[in-house]
Every structure is written in C-alpha cells, then in structure tokens.
C-alpha cells in the first residue's frame, strides 16, 4: 500500500516562507489530520503536495514515485485528489458537470468505469443526486462542499487532500461530511489528509495528527495521544 512521505519541505510566497522544513508521513488507509492556527501553513502544505505551489526544497513521495513539483494535472493522475479551501466548485456549471469535470481525464480510456464512479459518488451524497441538473451556484454551502468532494472522488483517488471542509458550515452538516469521509476511508482503504482548524472535530475521527505552527511541525503523534495532551491543547489549540 502507498503512503505519502513528506520530508524537509520548504515553500515560499515571494519573500514569505510559508513552509519551513516540514516532514511527516500519512500512512496508507488512515486519516491523518493537519491542524494549526490560521496562517500556520496548512493550505500551503496541501497546495504544495497537489502541485499548485512549487516547493523550494524538500521532497514529497507517494508510494514509490516522487511527485515533488510535478504539475497538478500530473499529480491527480497519480491518484491524489485535492479539495481546495472554500467549496471550490464552478457555480455556472450544473452539479453533474462539476462532477464530470473531475473524471474528464479518465473518460476516454475508461468510460464505463467513469459512469460507475459518478453513480457511486452520487450514492454517497443523495442530496446531490436529487439536484444533478441544478446549477452549482444554487446549492447551499454544505451541498457545495459535498459537490467539491464528489468532484475529487470521481477521479477514484487513493489519497484525498481535504482543506477545511467544515469552513462556514453548520455543525450537523460538518458531522455528516466528516462521517462520510471516515466511512469511505474505513471501507475502501482511501488515505486521507484532512486539514482542519477545528481540531476537536478532526481529532475525533483521525488516526494520526500533525500540528503545524508558523510553517513548522510542532507536534506529530497519534490522534489519541494528541487528544490526551492537555499541555499541547492549551499551548497551540487554545481550548
């Protein structure tokens, strides 16, 4: 089984260093959560893994291939799907078009499998299935997040990068989304890298936790240990 190994990763925005030597491992079939305050570098980490930002140094390897600084459209072909921050869907597209978009690159080779993948994600999110013809712009925040996740899942990834899926959503909806992901991970062996500011929610389902602070790894241990570590909680997580 593949695992994601990040070592000594450094990413800059111009003169701003966003990631300053990050190393950790996301084990296969597990949920690894990346938590930390606003501006800690969580989104930058995911964006560098998926190729949207260029790493200055360090390596990212996925199974036996190195994916550091490949283009995003190559990385998604290696089985890594990224759901970026903020319900990234195309509002003028219909729900179905948004989902189809995620499978375009597999369509020619594997059109029957793509059809199956689309109906699988729609089974996962029945609320979307009722609205396939509707435009994505008319969906509620929670539905949009589900759509963004569906767009990623339809490419049949082995690793799912999720950036703050709970952002701006009602607790009930968050719970529903997190449980769907959890279920998917346990039943299909999907590896998940879940970025959250809301540490409680994330640690509740995660196997492993990585705490980022100012672009560095401040703590890297099992989720259970993190939940129990009251010093860490008061120092970094503020509760």
């Amino acid at each position: 089984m593949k695992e994601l190994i990040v070592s000594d990763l450094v990413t800059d925005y111009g003169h701003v260093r966003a990631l300053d030597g990050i190393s950790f491992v996301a084990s296969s079939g597990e949920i690894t959560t990346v938590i930390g305050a606003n501006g800690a570098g969580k989104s930058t980490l995911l964006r560098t893994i998926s190729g949207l930002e260029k790493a200055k140094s360090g390596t990212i390897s996925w199974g036996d291939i190195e994916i550091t600084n490949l283009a995003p459209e190559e990385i998604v072909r290696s089985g890594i799907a990224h759901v970026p921050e903020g319900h990234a869907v195309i509002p003028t597209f219909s729900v179905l078009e948004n989902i189809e978009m995620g499978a375009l690159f597999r369509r020619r080779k594997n059109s029957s499998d793509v059809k199956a993948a689309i109906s699988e994600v729609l089974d996962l999110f029945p609320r979307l299935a009722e609205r396939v013809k509707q435009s994505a712009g008319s969906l509620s925040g929670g539905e949009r997040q589900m759509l963004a996740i569906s767009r990623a899942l339809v490419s049949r990834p082995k690793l799912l990068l999720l950036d703050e899926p709970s952002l701006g959503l009602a607790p009930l909806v968050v719970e529903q989304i997190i449980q769907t992901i959890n279920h998917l991970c346990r039943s299909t062996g999907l590896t998940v890298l879940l970025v959250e500011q809301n540490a409680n929610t994330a640690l509740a389902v995660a196997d492993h936790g990585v705490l980022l602070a100012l672009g560095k790894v401040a703590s890297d241990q099992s989720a259970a240990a993190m939940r129990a570590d009251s010093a860490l909680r008061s120092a970094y997580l503020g509760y």
Partner: protein
Amino acid sequence: MNTFISTLITGTATGAIYALAALGLVIVWRGAGVVNFAQMGQAMFTTYIASNLIASGNSYWLAFVVALISGSLLGMAIDLLIMRPLAHKKSSSSTKTLAATIPVIASLGILAILQALAGVFWAGEERGFPTPVNSFYFKNGTGTLPFSAFNLFVIGVVLTVLLSLSYFFTQTGVGLGMRAAALNPEVARLSGIKVSRMRTLSWAISGAAGSLAGLLITPSTNLSPNSLDLILIVAFTAAVVGGLDSPLGAVIGGLILGIGISLVTTYGSPENVFLAILFLLLAVQLIRPNGILGGKQVRRG
C-alpha cells in the same frame, strides 16, 4: 418594401459574419484572457492563402478548407510562441494594470507583422475574392427576390458553425474542459485538465472562426493587408455589446450590428456608420458595462 426586406436580409447575412468574428474574440477572451486585436489580421492572412490557391487553379472548396486549417494553426502558433511565454512573464511584471495590457500590445504587434508580411508577399494592392455561389439577387418570373444565393450560403454556414460550436462546448468532454479551464483554472488543473492545452485550443478554434469570417466577408470588401481592420472593430463592438464573456451575446451583438449597419447605410449615410458604432460602443459601456448578456463578473481587464 423590397428595399427594406433586402436590407434586412443582407444585414442578417453580414451580421452572421460579424457574429462569427465576435465569437472568435469571445472564445479567446474567455479561454485565455486576451482580447485578440490580431484576429482579423490572421483572417486576412489566411484569406490571402486561399486567394493564391484559387488563383493557381485550385477549387474554391480546397482553398476554403486550407484557409480554415491554416487559421487554426496560426492561432495555435500565436499562443505557443508568443502568448504562453508572455503569460509566464506576466507575473513578474511591475504592475497588474500594465500586465493586463501586455497581451493587448502583443496582439497589436502581431497584427502589424501579419499586415506587413502580407504586403511583402502579396503586394499591397487590392484584389477581389470569389464567392462559391452566385451573389446576384435571385430572379423569379416577375422580378427579383431581395436576396442572393450567397446570402443564404453565408447564413447557412454560420448557423451550422454556431450550432456545432454550441454542441461542442456543452455536450463534449473537451468542451467541458475548455469551459472549466476558462472559468476556474485552478479547479480545472486539480481535475486533471491540461489548462494550457485548452488555451491553445481556444486560440485554434478562434483562429478558424476568424478565418471563416474573413473568407465570407472578403467578397464584399476586397482583399488587401488592411481590408479586415473594420471587421475587427465591428466584431469588437459586437462582442462588447453582447458582454465579451458570452458566446450567445456575441452572436446577438453581431446580428444587431449587421442589421444596424445595413439600415444606416441604406437609409442614413454610409459615413455615419462609424459614428453609430462609436456611439453604440460608448452607450453600452456606460449604461450596461457587462453587455446585454454578460454576467456580473465579466470585467477582468
């Protein structure tokens, strides 16, 4: 009455050509974020290629196809050789406003080069360009009908192209990918869509659309290095009237301009055409800056 009907039909036929040219502008604007002022220069160039093929004894249809293919190749070449390197450079440029005008200036440079090259290769003097079918008004027993076979041909060809393009963009995977790449390049790349390839494709399609417009309009303007400049202006106005971001808007804008210009020429004076275009352009931008069909977030300039 006959004059009025024939004015309408001629206006619709030229309007259809303007629509095509405007659509070419819209496709590249949406797909690559560039208003391509070189578009009708490219079309002029490929029409010259067609004209030379016909002059050396080939059939109109061969010339027609070759012109369309060269139009799309030329569009692709412009993207690959000029616009793509510029886009990489853009981010390092000093100001954002200036960065947005750089591709515009580049397209003007391309226009200048194409026109000069046409002059060097084929001399500056005007030459005619044939129509594939008769362009005289039909005759029936009692008199003439107010339209020609060429009018019908133009309307038919443009309609077919518009329908195929609309099918392509809404019903095919590549079309979906092109739209996604235009609307949200980041999500498109994360979905595995090769965004830069989609951009090149936009340039190719737009190049072919422009070439087709050039082939269809040139019989009535004659061919010279500058003969399609005016079509660019009309197409630009049509695209802005329609909202620059909206393909359907471009088509409607093209028809409005075609019929409008036809009416002004017949009932007003031809000299007022430009003033009318200028007036329309300013009025639309001041009253409805997003055009008749443009969305809220149209303006990227």
